[in-house]
């Protein structure tokens, strides 16, 4: 898989995980909620980083 394809794939994967987590969050017990939000924040930051990498790649 080409690098760009891998970036697309990882963005898609992380976005999907974020969506699933966001759907689960309202039902989460309070004691696990903070951990989940921290993981979601990490995923969001990864997406931002990957989008930066995409911007840096030469345009087709």
């Amino acid at each position, binding site marked *: 898989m080409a690098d760009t394809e891998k970036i697309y*794939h990882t963005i*898609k*994967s*992380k976005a999907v995980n*974020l969506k*699933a987590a966001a*759907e689960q969050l309202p039902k989460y017990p309070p004691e696990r909620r903070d951990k989940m939000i921290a993981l979601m924040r990490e995923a969001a930051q990864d997406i931002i980083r990957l989008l930066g990498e995409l911007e840096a790649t030469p345009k087709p």
Partner: protein
Amino acid sequence: MDKLKILVIEDDSLAREVMANNLAGQAVDFATDKAAAERKLKAGHYDICFIDLLLGENDDYSGLKLIPLAVSKGIYSVVMSSCDTEETIGRAYALGCKEFYVKGNEEANVSAIIARYLQGDGGKKAQAVFSGGFITNDPATRALVTEALKYAATNLPLLILGPSGTGKTTLAELLHEHSGRDGNFVAMNCSAYTEDLLESELFGYKRGAFTGAHENRRGKLAQADKGTLFLDEIGAMSQNMQVKLLKAIEEKSFYPLGADKPEYSDFRVISATLEDVQKLLAENRLRFDFFQRVHGMTITLKPLAQRKCDIFPLMQAFTKGTKRLAFELEAKDYVLAHSWPGNTRELKRFVGLVAAGTQGAVTLETVRKHITPAATPPAAAPEGVTQAYYEYALKHGLAAAVDRFTAGIINHNLSENRGKKAAALAQLKISKRLLYATLAKARTPEGE
């Protein structure tokens, strides 16, 4: 039900957290990279393995390479990926994975996968269900329960219909056991409470909420957190209570009596009634919105009279670990001929009585003693046939019962006509031969 042993091979920490939540109730293990996955697959004994294809940002489908190992260990292998090209899907299936799903709808996908796994487990689990959890040999009932089990691992509400004693609570418990939910199975018969009592039982109360509330008490909704709330006889609930419960079901939160803060409970609802739901709705005893919220999938259980093949297997189950029963042929026939209007509840009582009072094989006399005619509904016997005649036919044979019936009619007629045989011949339209043969038999003592 034993917990399923599941290995999730996933490098993303958020995805692992999501899966942990989706697989709550099962024994879940995680591997975050290929090496750890190989170690765990070789050492562990898993039922199901969820495999992410790309393990790390620079990975080259190492998940695919794990499929043959998982398959060789007899593990039900499921690939989950955001990479859903035809080529990848084809390769995964060629390597032996059972299912491939695209990430994005985990909650529904995971539940469905577990249900399919349980169904397809060589029939072993299904067999275990029908010989233990819900005893039935009736093909239609088996199909119904199997269908219901597909929904066990979802959060969809279920409504179980059927007469009293057909196994509604047993089925609800079975569905809870297969739901993968960690919490308790909490059953409640709504018809057993007054409205006030039902409210405090369901929602609980705080100390001082009413006279006699000396301490805080958790209600059934709280007790069923992460579990299943089974509401039997929902038709007995007042409209007011249905509104309150509907709100609690939809919001997963409620106010215990006397509380100023809501409490939260993640419960799944299974409800049941022996009444005709359409009639309950038509009579406004069941609110339409409440019904819509609780009826999800509807399962109608047949009475025992329509699945007589279950009578003896159920008896065996009721006497498991205690005295086993063997029935003489006539006794067996009598048991099968009975309509069991009280269904399994009546059968259980009968088995208890027979087991306690029998030495050796169970005779017809013992069976007749414990199946009282009062327990037989009038509709069970065809018009004109009394229970006494029916029992006589069972004991002495149909020909003897017909003779007895004939003699009864003739004697009654002779008595009305002061013994005039000509009147009997004319009114009953019978031959002289039959009249005299019947009278001769009546003069001969029984047994000669």
